[in-house]
């Protein structure tokens, strides 16, 4: 009985908010009509895109509300409104989402108010019938569930009106892929330039100077052996430095341990050298095939960054790394019990020690592979960094 009443109350509240939304829709319709007139008169052309954005915000609110009531999210797909007024007008008019929203605004105005009235009316029989029926006799309530059903009905209608069409979702996906591909191309270009610079300024220069010292040593060989020897010593030092630099460049391109040991072995090596007490666990249906090299490298660098952050800034003593491999996906999750706040410094409170710079690099790397990064790191900890990388495109 109490549960039924509780549910009915929540349904009523849901419909009260819906009623409020209907009133807002009335206002939106007025705003939209004014916007239309203003645009027709050219003077207020900037007003219409703003109105569309306002409608989107309300529609977004309704989507979240429906998502919260039913427990199933309503996807949201809009064309972005940017550029000059004319461009914004054009994309607003061309976006099928605008039409959907307007349809919803019109419909919500009607059913929001109507269903609110129904629920108000239903409370009378609910009290008259269910009061004695189940309050006194202890039977199953009859009218109270109807209130919940009314709220369900409103959610279903809103969902039907606000769910974007498959074409719109597809279009959005294509847009996303275009974006990530552009990101991938840019990241690849930047990477090539960085490698070129490292090799050119570092290794090449050292080899030139090394060759020069050997040449000088040859000249001094007969006449001044002591100088020749000193030059050869310097040449050897230069050669060693060139090798050290090359090793760093190679590590930055593709860590050799990944090639030798695969992702799991490489992550275990990272864990062992992190200085933290790290527990590594692996799950998923690994059929033995390796993920693409770029995916493994991105996952590896993400774990490396997360563990470095945990030890250096988070002050953590222990961490755990979970590695999940399915045929279509690699997921790494790094959890630490440190101080948290890994993401907040992305904005850079202290320019000397920007905590998030490494994370930004990881985000770029992962985004270029159409993956996702989720960071939850409330102040005081714990920190969770989860990276998902698709392996099949």
């Amino acid at each position, binding site marked *: 009985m109490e549960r039924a009443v509780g549910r009915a109350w929540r349904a009523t509240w849901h419909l009260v908010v819906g009623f409020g939304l209907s009133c807002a829709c009335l206002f939106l319709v007025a705003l939209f009509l004014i916007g239309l007139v203003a645009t027709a008169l050219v003077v207020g052309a900037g007003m219409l895109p703003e109105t569309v954005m306002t409608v989107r915000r309300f529609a977004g609110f309704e989507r979240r509300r429906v998502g919260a009531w039913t427990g199933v999210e309503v996807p949201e797909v809009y064309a972005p409104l940017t550029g000059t007024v004319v461009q914004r007008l054009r994309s607003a008019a061309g976006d099928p989402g605008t039409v959907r929203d307007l349809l919803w605004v019109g419909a919500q105005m009607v059913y929001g108010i109507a269903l609110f009235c129904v629920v108000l009316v239903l409370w009378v029989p609910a009290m008259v019938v269910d009061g004695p029926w189940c309050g006194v006799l202890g039977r199953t309530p009859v009218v109270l569930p109807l209130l919940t059903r009314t709220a369900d009905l409103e959610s279903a209608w809103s969902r039907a009106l606000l769910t974007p069409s498959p074409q719109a979702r597809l279009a959005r996906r294509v847009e996303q892929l275009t974006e990530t591909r552009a990101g991938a191309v840019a990241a690849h270009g930047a990477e090539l330039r960085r490698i070129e610079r490292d090799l050119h300024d570092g290794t090449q220069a050292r080899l030139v100077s090394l060759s020069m010292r050997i040449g000088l040593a040859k000249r001094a060989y007969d006449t001044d052996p002591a100088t020749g020897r000193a030059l050869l010593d310097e040449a*050897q030092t230069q*050669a*060693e430095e060139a*090798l*050290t630099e090359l*090793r760093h460049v*190679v*590590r930055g391109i593709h860590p*050799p*341990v990944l*090639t*030798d*040991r695969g992702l799991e*072995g490489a992550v*275990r*090596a990272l864990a*062992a*050298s992190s*200085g*933290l007490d790290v527990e590594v666990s692996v799950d998923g249906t690994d059929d033995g095939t390796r993920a693409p090299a770029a995916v493994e490298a991105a996952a590896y660098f993400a774990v490396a960054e997360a563990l470095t952050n945990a*030890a*250096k800034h988070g002050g953590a*003593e222990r961490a755990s790394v979970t590695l999940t491999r399915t045929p279509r996906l690699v997921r790494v999750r790094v959890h630490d019990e440190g101080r948290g706040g890994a993401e907040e410094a992305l904005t850079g409170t202290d320019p000397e020690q920007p905590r998030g710079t490494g994370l930004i690099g990881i985000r770029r790397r992962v985004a270029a592979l159409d993956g996702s990064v989720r960071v939850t790191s409330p102040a005081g900890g714990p920190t969770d960094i989860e990276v998902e990388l698709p392996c099949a495109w």
Partner: protein
Amino acid sequence: MRVVIAEDNALLREGLVLLLRSSGHEVAGVAATGPEIVPLLLDQRPDAAVLDVRMPPDFRDEGLRAALAAREQLPGLPVLVLSQYVEETYAAELLGGGARGVGYLLKDRVGRVDEFLDALGRVADGGTALDPEVVTELMSRRRRDDPLAALTPREREVLHLMAEGHDNATIAKSLVVTERSVHKHIGNVFTKLELPPSDSGHRRVRAVLAYLNA
């Protein structure tokens, strides 16, 4: 001393052969691929083996695996593993089990011929040769209330050289101090790290490495 070499790069292989022969060692055999290594070692039973980590056919860690496999069948076989890069995990795998006669060095070190031959000799005598880079990594690890912080700079240097596998005489020479003062520093290090005192043999290296690896 009789040495077996496993290295797939012809240039480096010839270089190593030349280097060992010219310093009076006998090259008992060379392997150019991973699967050749263990049979060759079992057949030749050399005084020491110099192995490259990455070898054909898979170019992963065949050399390292071969070293571990050969030592299972020939306990105590001295192996010196060379690699283009060093990885702590590999060092831990090689040094695991308290075995004697193990070396793990960057390929770059071959250029310092005397030091390389010294390291090889140490390994052949049942000692340890650990690349300075691995030791640096081990020492730079963050620890809770780091006891290494209590060491003086000189003591840190001594600890570093001990972990690489050098004996007191060599440590004294490279730090340009007397053996007596090296002995004193080592005593201080062991006290500060709360390690049980041990002799200057490989057991001491184990104790230090076990400590750094913890």
